């Protein structure tokens, strides 16, 4: 296959064009076009997975063409171990989210067209290796997200949509400034991320610190890391189910991906310096604070949103550890968080579609009425809690093992939070699914075939990665360890004490 990355990125745009050309009155056709557009994406992702060389740290499937030569801007695509796992995740989540969108019954044409644009933007971020191109894709995502939340969202959708837009724009303009700094103050003016990483040593330490902070804020808003997380619960609560799935499944990963791709690779010395305070400590705050907030929620979806904040903390902690286990665990956790949180949001959507509210206290005893739904929820909850045998267990344990030698106190805090997580998850499960059935909900139907179709593939992935994590870890290994070595080398003396 030639140009697989161009194809995987722009196939949804073809779908978008077809959708816009559809005449009025063909809403179901629009749905199926959208679904059909994500299938080749999934197929290409599978092909990439099968043909990916797991023994090299070099970029693969590279495409490079001059775009604006006067400014050294290239159309430069490629994937390494870090990005291919995210490409896979994006393809899976986009495929699922189209089917989860079938319950949208208003303005389908606009909805699916924007969804396709969002898909292209997300995929583009993970395959772009030219910083300028990366930035374009990064920003292109904002607008569809704004409309998808703002038009098809819940009652406070306007507030949530503009809050999301403002927060992320502030972050991305900081990235823009840092990007220009990297361009001008480097060895040679370049936006090529691979070349920038190669010449990383050229930047002065003072510049590295400033640029690192600017980039970090930009990416941290996306993760979202404390204290920039406040847009997330609003956006999640108001967004339609499928958009929450994309938000939690893919968008949040861009923050941590950006830190690995840009901060770690291009500014390794500053990364080494800031890892403890800005990644480690904030990561642990995310874990603990997110869990405590989740415990206090009365809205089912908000609870899941905070639990998502909490689980993203493990990713940051693992990255901060800068050990092989930690950093591998972090990226595996990104993947697992994507599948598990997507499941959780889908499950919230199922009950919201039926009961039209999400108050945890308004339910009870649903397990008797909807056994399949309750069973899948139980599965997803246990996965989120980190039950051995399910995927999140492996990644969280890897993170904790990796972080232990460097930050024992923070590791204990992170591990201890598992008890809190189990607490709020089980308590929620009890309040919604166990106990006496609320009479109002005596006629709720169980999962439909479509809903099951969106949930079961994710559950299977969670199960497989719980038993055989190497399916993803093998992809990551070489690239991640390379990045890790780069960061460690930037501060050689400090390393000796940590790595045997």
């Amino acid at each position: 296959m030639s140009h697989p990355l161009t194809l995987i990125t722009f196939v949804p745009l073809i779908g978008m064009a077809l959708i816009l050309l559809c005449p009025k009155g063909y809403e179901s056709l629009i749905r199926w076009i959208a679904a059909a557009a994500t299938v080749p994406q999934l197929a290409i992702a599978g092909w990439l997975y099968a043909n990916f060389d797991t023994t090299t740290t070099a970029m693969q499937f590279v495409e490079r063409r001059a775009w604006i030569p006067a400014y050294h801007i290239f159309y430069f695509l490629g994937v390494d171990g870090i990005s291919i796992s995210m490409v896979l995740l994006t393809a899976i989540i986009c495929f699922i989210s189209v089917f989860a969108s079938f319950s949208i019954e208003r303005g389908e044409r606009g909805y699916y067209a924007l969804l396709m644009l969002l898909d292209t933007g997300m995929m583009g971020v993970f395959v772009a290796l030219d910083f300028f191109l990366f930035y374009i894709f990064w920003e292109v995502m904002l607008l569809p997200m704004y409309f998808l939340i703002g038009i098809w969202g819940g009652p406070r959708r306007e507030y949530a949509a503009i809050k999301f837009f403002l927060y992320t724009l502030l972050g991305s303009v900081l990235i823009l400034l840092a990007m220009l700094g990297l361009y001008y103050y480097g060895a040679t003016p370049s936006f090529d991320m691979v070349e920038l990483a190669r010449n990383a040593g050229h930047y002065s330490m003072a510049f590295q610190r400033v640029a690192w902070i600017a980039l970090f804020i930009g990416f941290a808003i996306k993760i979202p890391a404390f204290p920039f997380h406040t847009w997330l619960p609003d956006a999640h609560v108001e967004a339609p189910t499928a958009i929450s799935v994309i938000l939690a499944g893919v968008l949040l990963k861009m923050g941590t991906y950006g830190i690995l791709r840009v901060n770690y690779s291009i500014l390794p010395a500053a990364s080494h310096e800031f890892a403890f305070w800005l990644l480690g400590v904030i990561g642990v705050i995310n874990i603990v604070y997110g869990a405590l907030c989740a415990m206090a929620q009365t809205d089912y979806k908000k609870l899941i949103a905070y639990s998502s904040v909490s689980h993203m903390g493990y990713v940051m902690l693992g990255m901060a550890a800068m050990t092989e286990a930690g950093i591998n665990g972090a990226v595996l956790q990104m993947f697992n968080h994507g599948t598990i949180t997507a499941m959780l949001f889908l499950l919230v959507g199922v009950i919201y579609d039926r009961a039209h509210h999400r108050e945890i206290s308004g339910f009870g005893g649903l397990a008797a009425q909807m056994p399949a739904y309750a069973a899948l929820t139980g599965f997803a909850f246990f996965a989120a809690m980190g039950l051995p045998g399910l995927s999140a267990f492996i990644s969280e344990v890897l993170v904790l093992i990796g972080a232990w030698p460097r930050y024992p106190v923070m590791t204990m805090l992170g591990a201890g939070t598992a008890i809190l997580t189990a607490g709020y998850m089980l308590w929620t499960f009890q309040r919604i699914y166990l106990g006496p059935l609320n009479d109002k909900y005596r006629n709720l139907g169980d999962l439909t075939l479509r809903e099951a179709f969106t949930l079961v593939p994710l559950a299977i992935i969670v199960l497989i990665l719980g038993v055989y994590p190497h399916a993803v870890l093998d992809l990551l290994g070489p690239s991640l360890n390379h990045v890790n070595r780069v960061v460690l080398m930037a501060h050689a003396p400090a390393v000796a004490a940590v790595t045997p």
Partner: protein
Amino acid sequence: MDLGNVASLSHFLPELLLTAGVLLLVIVDLILRNKTPLGDIALIIAAGALVLIAIEPVRRGDWLFHRMLVFDAFGFFFRVLIALAAVVAVWMSIGSVEVRRCDQGEYYAILLASTLGMFLMAEAANLLMAYLALEFVSLTSYVLTGFLRRNRRSQEAALKYLIYGGVASGTMVYGMSWIFGLTGALDFGAINRALTAPGHLPALTVFISLVLILAGLGYKIASVPFHMWAPDVYTGAPIPVTTFLAVGSKAAGFALLTRFFYPAISRLGADGSWQALAGVDWPQLLLIVCVITMTLGNLAALQQTNMKRLLAYSSIAQAGYALMGIVVLTDDGVRAMLFYMFAYYLMDAGAFLVVMIVANATGREDMDAYRGLAWRGGAVPAVALTIFLLSLTGIPATIGFIGKFYVFAAVIRSRFYILAVIGILNSTVSLYYYMAPVRMMFLEEPRGDEIAIGFEPWTYGLMGVLACATIALGLYWTPIIAFADRSMHFFMGPS
């Protein structure tokens, strides 16, 4: 070369065409009973001027009319831009309900006369010429602003414009007299030679005269503290005139401002870099003006509910962004400013055009007229307006983003970090009010009593062109940046 009066005429054809066009329009107006063809004639003349400019090759540069005007690449860029603005303004006027109700003969004649004045501003190489051209543009603008004779807001705007303009240009001519007193010269080349000559430079006197001159120039580009007229004038004037003022007049102001602050009073080093005169720290002054302009413009725009007023404050802020390119005093900065002016032309003209389409149908300019526009037959203008507003915010993939990218690149390269941070904070703040109409059009449901927006091929055609250009040039902008690159050359006399 220093060309005399007759020899200059061959480089003066677009201006001559405009002059002939003004006279022709006045005569045809007297003869014709049906006034419809007047707009078409004006359009042909404006387009003709554009073509005449475009086909004439720019050589190294010449002085025209005994050093009154200069014919160079920099002036070429702005003449093209102003001619494009005139074409859009005339095109819009033909489709405008407001303009159709007034005396079209005089309207188009004055519009073309104003264009002529802007050309002269872009080419002026002499303080006297600069002042006359600027006054010419001002006088014609006053009349155009007050053209809706039965509309009190239009009248008030014209009066306000006139009073502010009088004060600003009076201040400016006083400053010019200081420069003349110091250097004994009026043409920019001689002023530059006198000021950069070795020997004692009365720095404070020069600086004060620059502050005074900045009053007139700042008034034209609507920068703080001479911006106060803009919101009222932009709101009161007929929409095509507002567009012309926002795009054309501002471009002419930037042309004159740059030509005065760069080749006239800055030192061009042997390596091609610019330096301000020792002790005359105008970049610092302009930096403060630039920061306050964009911040104030953006903050004031947050509260607006009238679309023309919102765009008026936005255009103040946009002038602030473009000024960042001048402040850094580098070729990169000038290039960024040129590119930004072009981007600004596309997106601001486009935004005003959509405002006019809505006003044509509903007779309203307030934000409430946009409620649920996308859901009541106005999806195309709603999408177009969204594109223009996003471009004004600086979101990829639009030309506005590329404009901001170049401006910030120039600023970062010159290491003005604080300015860059203020600039990006402003961009973020501006998103809030640029998204307000978008929210109104898409996120709000129509109430049901709104007037539907009908399809008008004439205005929709232009809107489509502007919207497509905004996106297409945001993805591939090499032609524009190459054009800006070629236009960075100021003719400063044969060396």
